[in-house]
């Protein structure tokens, strides 16, 4: 097998990991720029949604598409409940306090998942049966191609939602200045509810895409979540295109490091990249610094 073929293969499977990272990062950034919450429960929200899909699929024998759709709806409801029951009434509304709140939520959700669905590894059926496709000397896994493509479809859908719908415009307005948006008569609470729902849906979508490449268990999303944070920070916490760029960059670079440099180094590579990027660009590649008024 030639060097070029290895490169193409790494690029494609890197892009499929990148899709998952980018989706996680998008959910994190979407929530952060609107609510100023660094959501550590993002991964566990996704895992919970995936467990719901898995249960519908295997226990109730509901067809594939429908059970995934129902899981996304359930995730949206959970997201709204988290906002209404935990985030809104919390007395500690500082940025750090809310961060800790989501850490607590992550622990509680992970504990609930373990209690309800068990700690054992489960195999999530894939949308397509995995085959190895060969193009000349390049062999590519069908699942990783589908993962990459579905990721792109979801990102385009989110972009369309934010650009062309009233809800999207309202979300962007609240993200810019919450008080002004409220003064202009926007229903800020509803918009924030929708943001939480969208973030939870994105989390579940990412987890559903990621699950077939690994095994489903309560800690499944720990690694993609930390990589998603890294991707979001590399791209800039308030920039959605930055999240996508960061996700794909990280996914591809990480795989190239694994193939060409060393496999051991691959795991810690992401965290060295983030420190390097932040030293050079403290607000990420595409992020804008918050303007502070004195």
């Amino acid at each position: 097998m030639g060097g070029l073929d290895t490169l193409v293969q790494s690029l494609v499977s890197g892009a499929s990991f990148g899709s998952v990272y980018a989706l996680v990062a998008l959910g994190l950034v979407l929530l952060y720029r609107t609510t100023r919450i660094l959501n550590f429960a993002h991964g566990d929200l996704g895992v919970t949604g995936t467990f719901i899909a898995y249960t519908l699929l295997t226990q109730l024998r509901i067809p594939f598409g429908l059970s995934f759709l129902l899981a996304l709806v359930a995730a949206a409801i959970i997201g709204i409940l988290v906002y209404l029951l935990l985030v809104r009434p919390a007395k500690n509304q500082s940025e750090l306090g809310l961060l800790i709140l989501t850490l607590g939520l992550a622990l509680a959700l992970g504990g609930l998942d373990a209690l309800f669905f068990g700690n054992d590894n489960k195999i999530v059926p894939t949308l397509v049966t995995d085959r190895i496709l060969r193009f000349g000397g390049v062999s590519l896994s069908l699942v990783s191609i589908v993962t990459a493509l579905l990721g792109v479809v979801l990102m385009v859908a989110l972009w369309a939602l934010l650009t062309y719908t009233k809800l999207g415009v309202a979300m962007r307005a609240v993200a810019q200045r919450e008080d002004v948006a409220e003064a202009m008569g926007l229903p800020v609470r509803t918009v924030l509810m929708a943001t939480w729902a969208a973030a939870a849906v994105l989390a579940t979508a990412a987890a559903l895409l990621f699950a077939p490449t690994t095994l489903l268990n309560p800690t499944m999303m720990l690694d993609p979540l930390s990589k998603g944070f890294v991707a979001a920070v590399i791209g800039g916490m308030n920039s959605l295109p930055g999240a996508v760029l960061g996700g794909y960059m990280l996914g591809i670079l990480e795989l190239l490091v694994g193939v060409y440099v060393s496999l051991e180094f691959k795991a810690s590579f992401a965290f060295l990249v983030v420190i390097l990027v932040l030293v050079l660009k403290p607000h990420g590649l595409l992020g804008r610094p918050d303007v502070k008024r004195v």
Partner: protein
Amino acid sequence: MLFRERYENDLWLIRGSQAWVVAGLAGALLLALPFLVKGYLIYNFTLFFVYALVALSLTVLVGLTGQVSLGHAGFLAAGAYVHAVLTQHDWPFLLALLAAMAVSAVLGVIIGVPSLRLEGPYLAIATLGFGLAIQQILNNWAFVGASTGTIVDRPVLLGIDFYGDRAYYYLVLLLAGVVTWMLFNIERSHVGRAFRATRDADLAAQMSGIGLARYKTLAFVISATVAGLAGALYGPLVGYITPESFNLMLSIKFLLMTLVGGLGFLPGALLGAGFITGLDVYLSTFRAWSQLVFGAVVIAIMMLEPAGLYGRWLKIRRFWKSWPL
């Protein structure tokens, strides 16, 4: 002595006769404790001292200076591993302790200097990355035992064998006590005030002649050094360290200690360390529920009392002292 009215009030380490009585009783209790309780409780109290050191160090960083760290287990790991490797190469215990603190301090500078330009989420993720990177480097480094970890012995100092739980308890109590006293002193000195000034209004602090770069880095270095010391004491306590002992969950627990106790109060860090360590030990008997209960407790405290346990205590005390006003 309800509110601070004069500058001298700010300087007192222990305020008023009641505080002296409380401090004296607590000290006597801690000294007598190994003869009052069973063996495994002595171990748990020693663990509490170690965690309290980390919680205090994190309070200096997060509470006083306002810089978040989600990777404090990394500093703990650095201290523990440096100490373990050096004592295995026949370094004396105390020298290895100093070396562990020095290496941790250097790491503190390495993380602290870039952190000057980072704020909020960026710093949180950078420190998170630091903690995870340290863990993964140790995991792949054959020299320090990779993922199987390494054995750490308890020391023999001045002819005294600290192998027993009770003897080691006193050693940790002594070192932790001295460092705690030093941290309380830092907090009430001009350095502590500079830390709080950079936290509350960094621009105003800079205008008043406080070098932000200097104090923000200093906070990181102090915090990392103390965490390194805690790591060096942690290794011999548990006897066996693996990279997995310093995972993200531990960093999160340290952050929880500072917040549950009351962010920005050093006594709060002690309360929080006691609360979280106690909860951890208590919940370890029923594993299946522990994570859920842990999360629920954290959520409850964040939702109900932003000032933490110590903040609640201050409110209660203020209420009774000024009653019936």
